[in-house]
């Protein structure tokens, strides 16, 4: 897969509609073999027969006409319901050299919405910080895309996060079985997240967790004395010598990521760490590969 988009260059396009369409179409153009093609009722195209293909899929009429073996491929019909659960808490506002984590989550969410609607899947949106700010039920029509994008565009990160209660609340509210794509930095106690994810899984939801992190949060490259101001709680400030603290920080951070991965593993949640310095297509690729594995 060729990575063609730099996330920083996307910011200048502004509107998510355009960005999402460009991303998805560009992405799809680059993929020669569409993962969405399968064998269904609606014919898509012929392709040459290869040993191993089922004989029942051979188009005998075409054999008669051309004296060659072709198999018929059909458009897949899906009834996927998906929720994009986007964290808009204060900590998502962190911005280092690259776009903020929230901006990155916006691009990914918009792209996924476009992609899924393009495939006529139903997509919904949950935006939250301390509370659920916006909840859009899944729809499969193209007008719905605009609602989703508009909701994403108008959102701004802020407020304190309490992820687990929100996820519990979401689990309670979403009655139908759905694919839940979570875009969050997950800065909460992994133990509490475990229970929330278990709750979602208990409700038969498929969960895909995109763990959005800034490279600075992963590498902690600061060297000079620095005052860190809490994005979620402005009164919380820490003046430290980062160089002295780095080892301890990285250990803490790695432990957290490992715990989170373990939590996801235990709850059969598809976990992906995405960095804001990586192209958005990577998230799309991860999503599609998951969809393919599901078939």
């Amino acid at each position, binding site marked *: 897969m060729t990575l063609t988009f730099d996330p920083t260059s996307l910011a200048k396009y502004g509107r998510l509609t355009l960005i999402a369409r460009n991303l998805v179409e560009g992405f799809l153009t680059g993929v020669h073999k569409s993962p969405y093609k399968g064998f269904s009722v609606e014919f898509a195209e012929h392709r040459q027969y290869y040993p191993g293909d089922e004989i029942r899929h051979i188009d005998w009429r075409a054999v008669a006409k051309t004296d060659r073996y072709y198999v018929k491929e059909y458009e897949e019909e899906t009834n996927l319901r998906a929720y994009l659960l986007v964290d808009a808490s204060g900590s*998502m506002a962190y911005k280092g050299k690259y776009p903020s984590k929230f901006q990155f989550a916006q691009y990914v969410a918009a792209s996924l919405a476009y992609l899924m609607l393009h495939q006529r899947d139903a997509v919904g949106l949950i935006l939250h910080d301390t509370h659920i700010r916006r909840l859009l039920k899944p729809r499969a029509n193209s007008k719905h895309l605009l609602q989703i994008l508009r909701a994403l565009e108008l959102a701004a990160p802020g407020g304190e996060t309490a992820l687990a209660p929100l996820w519990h609340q979401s689990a309670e509210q979403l009655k139908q079985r759905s694919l839940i794509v979570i875009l969050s930095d997950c800065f909460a106690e992994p133990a509490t997240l475990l229970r929330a994810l278990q709750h979602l899984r208990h409700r038969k939801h498929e969960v895909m967790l995109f763990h959005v992190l800034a490279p600075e949060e992963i590498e902690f490259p600061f060297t000079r*004395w620095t005052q860190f101001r809490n994005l979620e709680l402005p009164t919380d400030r820490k003046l430290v010598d980062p160089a002295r603290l780095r080892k301890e920080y990285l250990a803490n951070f790695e432990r957290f990521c490992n715990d989170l991965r373990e939590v996801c593993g235990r709850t059969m949640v598809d976990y992906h760490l995405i960095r804001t310095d990586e192209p958005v297509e990577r998230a799309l690729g991860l999503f599609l590969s998951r969809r393919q594995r599901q078939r």
Partner: protein
Amino acid sequence: MFAFLHVPWMLLGLVVLAVPPIIHLLNRRRYDVVDWGAMQFLQVSEVTRRRLMLEEILLMLLRMGLLGVLVLALAGPYVDVELPAAFATRPTRDVVLILDGSASMAATDELGGASPQTKAREWISTYLEGLSPQDGVALLVARDQVLTIIDTLSSDRERLLTALDRLSAPSGSANFAEAFKQAFALLEKSQKLRREVIVLSDNQKFGWADPDTLFRWELLTHELGLERLGERKPRLWCVNLASDRSATPPNYGLAPLSSNRPVVPVDREVMFRSEILLTGQTRYLPPYRIRFEVDGKPIRDLTPPGGKAGNLPVPKDGRVPFSFTHRFTRPGSHLVSVILEPDPPAEERPPGYTIKDRVPGDNRQDFALEVLTALPVILIDGNNTPSSTSSSDFLRDALSPARDRQPSVKVQVVPFEDFQPGILTSDGRPRVVLLHDVPKLRPAQVEALDAFAATGGGILVTLGERVEQAWYNEQLYRGGEGWLPARLEGVTGNESLAEAARPDPESFKHPMLELFEKVTTGGLSEARFPRWWRLGLPGRHSPGLPVGQLQGPRCRDPFFVERSYQQGRTLVAAVPLDASWGTNLVDLPAFVPLVHEAIYYLAGARSADFNLRPGQPLRWRTGGGELEDFRLTPPSGEERPLSPPPGQPNTYVAQLIRQEQSSQLVYEDTRQPGVYRLLTPLLEPIYYVVPTDPRESDLTACTSEERERVGQRLGLTYEDSPEAVLGGTETAFTRQELWAYLLVGLIGLLCLEVWMTRRLVMNR
């Protein structure tokens, strides 16, 4: 006791301890601000927080400690601790050796063994072996003027020993006070804990504990502030290199040579005087030989005083005077030398012969004098009226008789009105100006006479009828500031011979009059002066000194009054020295010698220029030539040309001071007693003599009380062997310099700091 070697204000450097905390605080004030989401990962455990803080405090303390130890090490701390000698280390030291360079250091014992000078070489060699390689040693030689042989605190032992081997033979006397001053100045720069001054001497009383030197010690104590120095005072040692010498060893010496006339005419007899100085003798045995030399060439042997047999009792003052005469046949500078040989040569000595003389360095005396063809004199006559005879004729004829084809004095008579000031500075510059009954002079004439006297000329003033008293007092005496030696009080006496004043023979002690002391018939004491000028000497602080006295019926007045005026000498006579006022002086045979004595006495004012005090600059008035054309031979030195400062290799440094009429050559390094021979561009030798102090011949040793007195005054320890001086510091060995330990500590702390910083960096 804990103290610091260097100035305590260096401890102010401890304020640098505040630098690490200040840097830390400044760093904390300058920080970046980051809005951050992952705050929970910045929460470190309590253990980690404590560890970080501990590391931070430790590192800061370490850096403060580094700076503190560095400052302390620079302040040179030491501590006096009682350590067993086995554990004590010898501190580094700077030592100034002061070697006695006086003539007595060459004195041998009864068997003719090693002199203290030879022993000093061995002593220093042994002492140097006991020193550490980093110890610094300087060497001074105490003479009349101190010679600096090694002028820095050097660790080059070979250089010092080589310099010792090259030392010239001891001569003259020693000025230890000056040597101490120079030693203290050298040690002032020393940074070492132990600083020592070691005097190597022969325990001679003269130069160490005689009344003059005791007074010098007093002055030195105050000048150096020895009592105030406290811990900073260098340790002082005195080593006696002649401990086996008896208290009053026998010795013969010569007193300085003198002459009745420092300036003498050619072919005229001149008398020289000296004395044999006896110390440690019970009887006076005449010396084996007394040699007389002129310009280094033997003339004859002098008859020893007391005859050849001798064996006379020793005079109370231990001095046996003798005199001799000589006629010089050539004009110019001459060197008269008398060499005493108290003992016969070794091969002529009978078995069991007892050596009378221990110090060879005091058996020679020299005297430099100037011999002139004719002494140029200008006679300024107070009689201005033209006539065939004048009262000044008596003086003119006395000095330069008309019949004498080769007079010893060349007189030029000038009436006072015709006296031109330029005559005193022209090529035929007179040595003496004679003012005979001059009423008064013009200002230009007075100024010229003033300059003449100031530059070494002699002036004789005879007072008569014409003299204007008020003008003399106002213009020439000037309240004691002018060159006239005495104030004129007025003419006294009358024409009666019966009441006339006469010179008192008892007062003929002055060199100018001593010739007449024992002459009875036709002598000066037979002169009668019915009238004379009363010469006033106001009080004890008068610049003038009376020369002879006139004894009147009711009064006693000075006959002559003399004074030194800068480089010159002036003399005023209370009488006109002619036939006026009814005197019989000119009829007496003493008249001519009196005038000659007065003139030559005045002409000798410049003779001091040839017989110098130690350190008094040697001067020569030269008509022309460059400095490099002159050559000089100092005592025990080789003949070399002169060069201006800073000097060229293989030359002696001198200066040529250009003046209006002539130039003056000045050579200042006349510290060593002996003969200095200056060779002019015309190859004419000029002799200068720095005489030795006769007291140096007295080898009397210091008594223990005298040694103790000097020791207490200076805080000085007497110790004889080099081991004792080195080992004598045993108690001081317990004084431990701490800088070396601090340096080790500093390196340790530095390593610790590097390790800790590296560890912190690696942990990041």
